[in-house]
Structure formats: C-alpha cells, structure tokens
C-alpha cells in the first residue's frame, strides 16, 4: 500500500510542483490550500505523513500541527520559507517531527519522509521490556508505562527514548541522535534534538525542570540515567 501524504501550502504552484515530485517518488498525495481544508481532509482520509507550511491564511501551520497532534501521532514535517530560530523552534514545539526550509530539494524531501516512515514502522519488531528507573519501555508494542499508566509519546519521542535506552548510562551526542532517529548526516540541525528532548522530558520526568531520567552531559550530549 502506497504511503499517503497530505501536502498543505497556500501556494498552488508549490502544491502542484511538489505534488508531482512526490507522486513521481511513488507516494499518493492529497493537497490542501488552507488550515481548515487540511484538518477536514485529514479527518476524512488520514495521511501517513503531513507536510505543512507555517504561513497559511486563517488557521496557520502552527495551529494545524497542534490540532493534528491532539488526536494523532502522524509524522509532521514543516516545510517553510521561515528560517528564524524562533519559527523553527515554535514549529517543533507545536509538535512537528522535522522541518525543511524552502526551497526544498526533491531528494532531501523524500529522504526525510523515508526516515520518518522507517521509524514509524520499525516499532513492530519483537523486543524485551526495557526498565529505566520506574519507566517500562516496550519497543515491540511502542509503549512506555510508568506505574502502570501508559505515557502518550509521539513516535519520534518514543524512538528517541528507545535510542537512549538502547545503551543506558552511556552518552549519545546530538549528531549521533540526529543520525539514528532522524536519519540525518552530520549537517542536521541540533535544535531538532534539543526540542524533542524537551518534549520527551515533559512527559517522562517527574519534574521536567530538574531532569532525573534524560540527563544532559555538558559538552557531550544526552544519556538515560538508569536507577
């Protein structure tokens, strides 16, 4: 079954050209020119990956991402002309899994989509239960429990936790995490890692301002603190 992509951009020419590129890559594509249209379309016909522009008339890209995130863990990639750190971080904090700045290269776009799909589907393999502190991570089921309560992690957050848990106690630097979780080569943006670590902490830490599970090792990266 082909991967279905929802492409949201108010510029019809961009929708047309990127749509052609994506179809040529073998994806099926539905297009939306506004936030409202996109949300309706997603409810009727859920997509496997969402590409969203931040500057949309009416409901903007940030809001679309937030609303999608409320009901779904579908991978969201921001594709925007805005390159300010502020916008990028805001987009990621709204719940986006990755971001690309315009103009995007077709090769880069499908590489990003493939990385997200690989991650989304890789959780079906068998695996034991990994216990870190009071967290129980089940890579096979894609779930994390604390005290019997399941924590609602997005797939990217879950994958990030699994990568850190695969070697508990040892430090992983940002480029390593970028490569293993997002499939980037060395030039990925480390802000991706930092924002997702922040979101992960908000869900797995008892006090996110004083992390005890996902610990920063200054000058090196992050590690999972096994108790």
């Amino acid at each position, binding site marked *: 079954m082909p991967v279905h992509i929802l492409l949201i951009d108010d510029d019809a020419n961009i929708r047309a050209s990127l749509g052609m590129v994506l179809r040529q890559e073998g994806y099926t594509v539905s297009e939306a020119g506004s936030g409202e249209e996109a949300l309706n379309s997603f409810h009727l016909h859920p997509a496997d990956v969402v590409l969203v522009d931040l500057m949309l008339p009416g409901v903007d890209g940030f809001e679309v991402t937030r609303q999608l995130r409320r009901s779904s863990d579908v991978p969201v990639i921001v594709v925007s*002309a805005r390159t300010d750190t502020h916008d990028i971080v805001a987009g990621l904090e709204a719940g986006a899994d990755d971001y690309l700045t315009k103009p995007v290269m077709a090769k880069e776009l499908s590489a990003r989509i493939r990385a997200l799909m690989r991650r989304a589907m890789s959780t079906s393999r068998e695996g034991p239960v990994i216990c870190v502190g009071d967290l129980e991570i089940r890579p096979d089921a894609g779930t994390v429990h604390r005290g019997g309560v399941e924590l609602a992690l997005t797939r990217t957050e879950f994958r990030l936790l699994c990568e850190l848990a695969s070697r508990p106690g040892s430090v992983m630097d940002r480029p390593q995490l970028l490569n293993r979780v997002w499939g980037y080569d060395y030039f990925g943006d480390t802000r991706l890692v930092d924002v997702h670590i922040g979101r992960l902490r908000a869900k797995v830490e008892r006090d996110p301002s004083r992390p005890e599970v996902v610990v920063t090792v200054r*000058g090196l990266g992050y590690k999972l603190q096994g108790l």
Partner: protein
Amino acid sequence: MSGARRFGLRARATASFAAGAALLSVALAAASFGLAHHYLLAQREASATTETYQDARLVRRDLLFGVGLRVEDVLSSFTVPQGTVLFVYQRGKWYSASVAIGEAAGTSRPVALPEALVSMVVGGQPARQRVMSGGQPAIAVGVPLGTEGADYFEVHSLRELARTLDLLAVVLAACAAATTLGGLLIGRWLSGRLVRPLNATAEVAAAIAGGALDKRLPVDGDPDLAVLAHSFNDMVEALAERMRRDARFASDVSHELRSPLTTVQASVELLAGCRPRLDAQGQRALDLLSGEVGRFSTMVQELLEISRSDAGALGLDLEELALADLVANTVAAWSGERVPVAVPPAAANVWVAADRRRFQRALVNVLENARTYGGGPVGVGVAVDGAWARVSVDDAGPGVAPGEREVVFERFYRGAVAGRRGDASGTGLGLSLVREHMRAHGGDVAVTERPGGGARFVLSLPVLHLDGPGTTGER
C-alpha cells in the same frame, strides 16, 4: 597642525583657567603691593617729619633757654630710638647723637646727609629726602632752628618698613601662586565636569558602533545637554530604523523568493527526470537551468543569512565542542571529494565554544570556495597557536594575490579572478559569510599562501580548554 588640535579640550580649559587666575592674582598682588608701599612710606615720612619738628622744638628751647648748656649736652639728653640719628649744625660744626655713632662733633658733613638737603636747610628751608644710611634705606629731615645759627637734622631708618614690605611681597606672591594653583584645579575639575557628559556620549557612541543599537543617552539630566542628547538619540534612532529597514528588506526579499524558487526547483528536478527524452539542445538548456537554479537557491539562502547577521538576528548557539572531531566529521560529510584532515597530537584535544551550525557553514563555505576557485581542497589541518585554535584549508589553485587577501572577504567581490568566474558556481557571498560566522565566535578568517603554491584559508577560534569536556552530572 594647530595648537588647538594638539591639546585636548580639557587641557585647554584647564590652562585657560590657570592663566586667568595667574593674571588676575598677579595684577591684584602688584596693585596691593604698590598701594601698601605708597601708603606705608607716606605714613613713615609724615611721622618722621612730625618727630623731627617736635625734637627740633625741644632742641631750640634748650639752646635758647638752657643756660650754659652746650649742644652736646642738649643732644645727649635725648632718648634716641633705635635706628634714628640726630644732628645739629651750628657755626660750621656738626654735632650728632646716636646709639651707633655716639656723641661726636666734627666739621665735616655726615655722610648720611646729602649736600643738597643741608644747603637747603642752611638756606632757611625745611627739607626732606630719602637717603642710604649705613647701607640701609632711610629718610633724612632737616629743620632750620632760626636761632643761634643752628639747624636740626634727623635721619630715620626705614629698615623696619623695608622688612615689612618684603614680608608683604612674599605673602602676596604666595597668595598669587596659590590662586593660580586654585584656578588650575578649579579649571581641571570644572572642565572634567563639563566633559563628563561628552565621555558618556562617547561611550554610548562606541557601544552603538559596536552593534548595540538599542543604546541611548539619558535625556533627563542637564537641560543644557538635553538638546545634544535628544539630537544624538534621534540620529541613532533614525540610523537604527534605516538599518532595520535595510535588513528587513533583504530578509523579506529572500523570503519572498523562496516560494517561487521552491516551485522552480521542484519543476527543474522533474524535468531532470525527463532528461533522456530531450534532444541535445534541450539537455544543454536543462543543464544550464539546473546549475543556475542551484546557484540562485544558494544565493538566496546566503543573502538571507547575511541580512539576518546584519540585523543581529542570527544568534549564537554555543556548545562545547571537540574541534578535531567537528572538523573531521564536517569534512567527511561534505559533498565534495575526500580531503585528508591532519590533526597533530597537540591539537587532538582542543575544545572550543562554537555554534555547530554556523561553524560548519563557515568551514563548508571555505571548502566550497576551494572547490570553485582553487582547484579543490588538498588538505585540512587543525592546530593550536597559544590561545587560538586554527583550522586551515589548503587548495591547489593559483593562490590569492597579497593585495586581494582582505577584499576577497567582501560581499560580491569580483577581482582579478573575475575572468575565471564565467563558468563558476560561486555566489560572491560565501567568504563574507565565513567572516561573519567566525567574527560572531570572537575569531576570524584570513588567507595566506600555502607552502608550495595555492591558497591557505585559516579559520581562528579562541581555545576553550585543552583537555576533556567539562561535564556536569555523572560521567
């Protein structure tokens, strides 16, 4: 060069105050001295004259009515004050009484009495004259007694007066010197106070020139200076607004270019997929189009990057990084040909505080530059030079002429290499961005020549430390 420019405003104000005070105090002291001198001397002369007349009356009475009294006896009965000498001239003979001279009589005129004075008095005319007596200033007064053919003279010493005047002169000179010094100090203090707001202005101006465009002069101070502060602030505001507008314009332009560029790029990539179906001319056109779209895209991104750097909006996200790893990984991940990275043992553990993305951008731009203009990079080196970490990129090109080693970092620089740019894919912004990125880190970039020919671009960064990473928490 004029004197006004050689000395500062403060020095000149201080000197003016000191000169004014000196002039005024010297004039006042001189006037005081002159007046005091004149007044004291007049008083002394008057008192000497009065005393002489009194004494002359006594001498006359004694000579007239003192039966059998000789002139010597009359004179010896007088109590002579210190420094005063009495003389009586009678019938060609001089009689005198004083502590110093004693009582004596002689026919020769005493040296203390000038001839003119004596002849006037002998002629029946009282007279007074300033003389020198025993090397001291004195005043001689003569009175004709009009009886017994005698004349009376007194010589009053002015030594006390001279001493008083000397003391006065010393005191006045000291006062004048003190006033001059006072003027100097007041001038210094006052000019310092006056210049202080200028110093504040200079500090703010320097801060603004350094990029702190939000700095302003306080306007709630001195009303005389508020005008200057207001105009200064208005000027900075106008300047800042203009810079913001320029930066925003460049930023807006490159933003707006991104959307159509996305369509163009995607369409060109679609076309590239159809390349085999085009004829030779179509293929050549497609290749030209692809190349230029790539270059245009890079240019738009670099223009945006530079405009954001100008607007101070790039930010610096510093991380503690092992430079050798950072360089090796960046070079390995670069899309160009493989380049050997030389890291001597001394440089293996250099840690720097760097914005990973911006440093990588700088290094990649230098590598791209070497590929475009230098025949490709042939070696990358990491080294430590005191407090500086240096990353060098060598190429095998013609090198950069000494006269162009600074201007190559200017935006859209087209120099002697312009002729070779015809088929190049450079944007003219890459190296100027390298400089922006490196300076943001407190470092810089320079170009020299590689031993054996070619150019060597050197990126410099301050060394953070030379051992393992500084860590928090458990290792």
